[in-house]
């Protein structure tokens, strides 16, 4: 394999979460009974006409600016003509030679090494409907079609063929997701179809500059699938080339179950889409001042926010990266810091206990039952010695379960840490009296025996004794 280098380009489709579709007033809401989120326009009935949703253009520009693209001052829509039952008009309104934005980039980090991946273009287009087959597409006796999704606004983001490995491609897609999600124009969830990715893969002799024959890979429905599919395809192509064969330019589908890519070669030759400017839509004249206003309204983007966390909070790069992965999580974290002064401690709690509980319940941070102020209050209780760290974990689980304030839970369950020396001394004395063997072990030099004794004191005080005090008093009395 050392003789070949990999060339990967990604085509990413992002569903924009405007209220209504790109060319009509129908709702873009996910779900719903089939063919209920439709109207004559998105059904392509005879006589209808498209009218562009201005919000879609705004969202596309937001995404393009966040990806460092140049926004066109003149753009237009074109018809891409081909026949398929999930496309009501048998043409898709898309953009061909004058897309809304071009020449952007984003930065990825793989194994500590940062690289810039360039973006060729961003354009707007309408989504198709969905086909439902009984079995597979080739064995089904009939298919049903649901047009709820037809006309949902998409942007297509095309990268330059500059990624060199499956890991880099995955990092690119993850960064793309974070950036777009920050702009608020899409949820970017692969599992819901609001983020989709196709890949173009080719190999070339190491060190050469031309491009080998590429294959297009489709049907990768998760970041992991993307990585696995690319790894498989690279190996497959390498084997073909090593045996002296030629790569067939074709579209291949990733089969998750079998872990392979399969040829989707159909009877048709390469599509001639017969693009023409859509005569039903006026060209878009984009005002530079409006673009600047959109640029100013962009939030702090992931890379900048991560840098700020490292710089201002002194957090390690890893922590900063995890916390700024989504805007919601970063906002939550900063809201917590409004009531608590130690970023690293808070980071540990958010990345640790909080994330664990959210994942266990498959919840998003947006649905978190614990408000930032409550988590901050909990950590203040620990710092103030009111409860021990260990007890706090239990309190946190209860907070997550009930949404109640930490103070209320501590009070109701009588969990106040015992810091009264006298009370602890009494318990310590009792434990020493009851455990002569451990005491003897410790006095004989077995340091670890104190752990057992500490545990006994904690047990006797139902976990509420201040552990530092217990340690100190035990050591004093042994």
């Amino acid at each position, binding site marked *: 394999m050392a003789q070949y280098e990999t060339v990967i380009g990604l085509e990413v489709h992002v569903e924009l979460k405007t209220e209504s579709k790109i060319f009509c007033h129908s709702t873009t809401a996910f779900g719903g009974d089939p063919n209920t989120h439709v109207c004559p326009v998105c*059904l392509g009935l005879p*006589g209808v006409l498209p009218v562009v949703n201005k919000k879609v253009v705004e969202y596309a520009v937001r995404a393009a600016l966040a990806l460092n693209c140049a926004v066109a001052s003149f753009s237009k829509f074109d018809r891409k*003509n081909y026949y398929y039952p999930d496309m009501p008009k048998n043409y898709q309104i898309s953009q061909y030679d004058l897309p809304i934005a071009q020449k952007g980039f984003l930065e990825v980090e793989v194994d500590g090494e940062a690289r810039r991946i360039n973006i060729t273009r961003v354009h707007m287009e309408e989504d198709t409907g969905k086909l439902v087959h009984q079995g597979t597409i080739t064995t089904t006796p009939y298919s049903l079609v649901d047009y709820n999704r037809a006309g949902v606004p998409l942007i297509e983001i095309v990268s330059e063929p500059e990624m060199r490995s499956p890991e880099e491609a995955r990092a690119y897609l993850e960064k793309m997701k974070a950036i777009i999600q920050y702009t608020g124009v899409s949820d970017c969830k692969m599992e819901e179809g609001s983020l989709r990715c196709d890949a173009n893969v080719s190999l070339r002799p190491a060190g050469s500059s031309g491009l080998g024959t590429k294959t297009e890979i489709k049907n990768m429905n998760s970041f992991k699938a993307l990585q696995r599919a690319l790894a498989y395809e690279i190996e497959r192509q390498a084997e073909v080339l090593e045996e002296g064969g030629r790569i067939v330019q074709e579209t291949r589908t990733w089969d998750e179950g079998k872990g392979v890519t399969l040829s989707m070669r159909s009877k048709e030759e390469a599509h*001639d889409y*017969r*693009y023409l400017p859509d005569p*039903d839509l006026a060209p878009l004249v984009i005002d530079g001042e409006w673009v600047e206003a959109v640029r100013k309204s962009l939030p702090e983007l992931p890379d900048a926010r991560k840098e700020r966390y490292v710089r201002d909070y002194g957090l390690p790069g890893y922590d900063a990266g995890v916390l700024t992965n989504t805007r919601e999580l970063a906002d939550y974290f900063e809201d917590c810091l409004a009531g608590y002064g130690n970023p690293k401690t808070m980071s540990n709690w958010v990345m640790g206990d909080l994330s664990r509980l959210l994942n266990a319940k498959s919840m998003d941070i947006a649905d978190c039952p614990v408000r930032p102020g409550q988590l901050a209050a909990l950590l203040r209780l620990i710092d103030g010695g009111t409860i021990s760290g260990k007890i706090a974990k239990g309190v946190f689980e209860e907070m997550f379960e009930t949404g109640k304030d930490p103070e209320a839970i501590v009070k109701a369950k009588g969990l106040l840490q015992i810091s009264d020396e006298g009370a602890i001394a009494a318990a310590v004395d009792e434990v020493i009296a009851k455990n002569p063997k451990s005491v003897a072990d410790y006095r004989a030099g077995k340091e670890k025996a104190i752990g057992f004794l500490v545990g006994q004191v904690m047990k006797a005080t139902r976990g509420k004794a201040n552990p530092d005090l217990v340690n100190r008093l035990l050591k004093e009395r042994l």
Partner: protein
Amino acid sequence: MQLFRLTAHELHDLLVKKEISAVELNEAIFKRTDAVEDKVRAFITPTRQEALARARLVDAKIAAGEPVHPLAGIPVAVKDNMCTKGVRTTAASKILYNFIPPYSATVVTRLEEAGAALVGKTNLDEFAMGSSTENSGFFPTRNPWDLDRVPGGSSGGSAAAVAAGECVIALGSDTGGSIRQPASFCGVVGIKPTYGAVSRYGLIAFASSLDQIGSFGRDVTDCALLLSAISGHDPLDSTSAHFGRQDYTKTLKDGVRGMKIGVPREYMAEGIDQGVREAVEGAMRQYESLGAVVEYTSLPHTEYALPTYYLIAPAEASSNLARYDGVRYGYRAPEVEDVVDMFMKTRSQGFGPEVKRRIMLGTFVLSAGYYDAYYLKALKVRTLIKEDFDRALEKYDVLLSPTSPTVAFRFGEKTGDPIQMYFSDLCTMSVNLAGVPGMSLPCGFVDGMPVGLQIVGRHFDEATMLRAACAFEQSTDYHKQFPGL
């Protein structure tokens, strides 16, 4: 006086004076239709119940002393390529033989708001592709002046219905002459407004950058009234111009004294029938006697109009008609093996030969390797044609020409050679390419068949065009002629 011979503005007077009722009027129209429709066959779907229901509403309003729109209660026919909610709309094609739209075209809604009574959907060349209505997927319509001759096309049904007294006014659509040419063949008035003046929402698309909906009537005033009722911006049509409802009747009677009228030489050359040319020359002299200045001028790129049109229109049509595939509505071929087979058989069986011809031509023109040489080139030549009009209309207020090179021809006379048929739109096509408004009104007879005079105006200056038309009309009595049906 037979009610079906009166104009909408005359009838409106009678209605508000309560000398007749709207119901009476519509019933008189139905009676006339029953007498002649067997011969003319202007309608695909009559809608008498709907018309009477509306007539009753109008009568109630008038009885209550409420003001009503000039078109209230007036029997109007609508070309069957405009969607009417709940009423079958076929575009005269088998592929839409059973299509019932769940919505109405904007122009239909505006007519309803005005209180007009929709009496039926009229016949046309299939998907508006043709110049004689012989391409209808169902049956041909006959010219009321001579039943062996075509009414013109593609809005042949609407033109014939108005001429025969089967309605008072009608809507048509015009992509290359499809209102003006049948108006001229049937001796009625027909207007194609400036591109963008009337909403296309609900018009079954043929060529998006050329299609416009317009009006038919027995005189200029009626046409102007109908156009006023349907014009103005529609938020559902991105190509509709940003202005409000116009009153095109305001300056109708202002005369043509001092008006400068240009007659493009290219439109009076050989290829134009001798009798037609003489009628138009007569109109030119008539205009001079009315105080206008009439001169010959030139639109130098006229010879490229036909090829330019027949590249752009079919290209857009090939894309617009892709949706007719049997999946969602309309005809679906039985006994198919798979989806591709269904597409192919549905379209092969559902479309007529002229529609297929234009889809194939349009597909070719847009295909890889040919797009630049044909479609893109045609778009550029279109700009040159438009600039011809811009220059001429700087110098002249309106342009004058024959509407068609001939009077109505006989059935089957031109169906053998499609290109021969295309030539009947020679004088009208450029107007759509330039987007300017154009209209036809009767200016004489040849062998008993009406001759149409075309008047062309500046973009959004229908007022001047209509004023010129009205002056000529009122100084002659062609508009009072009626076929002896």
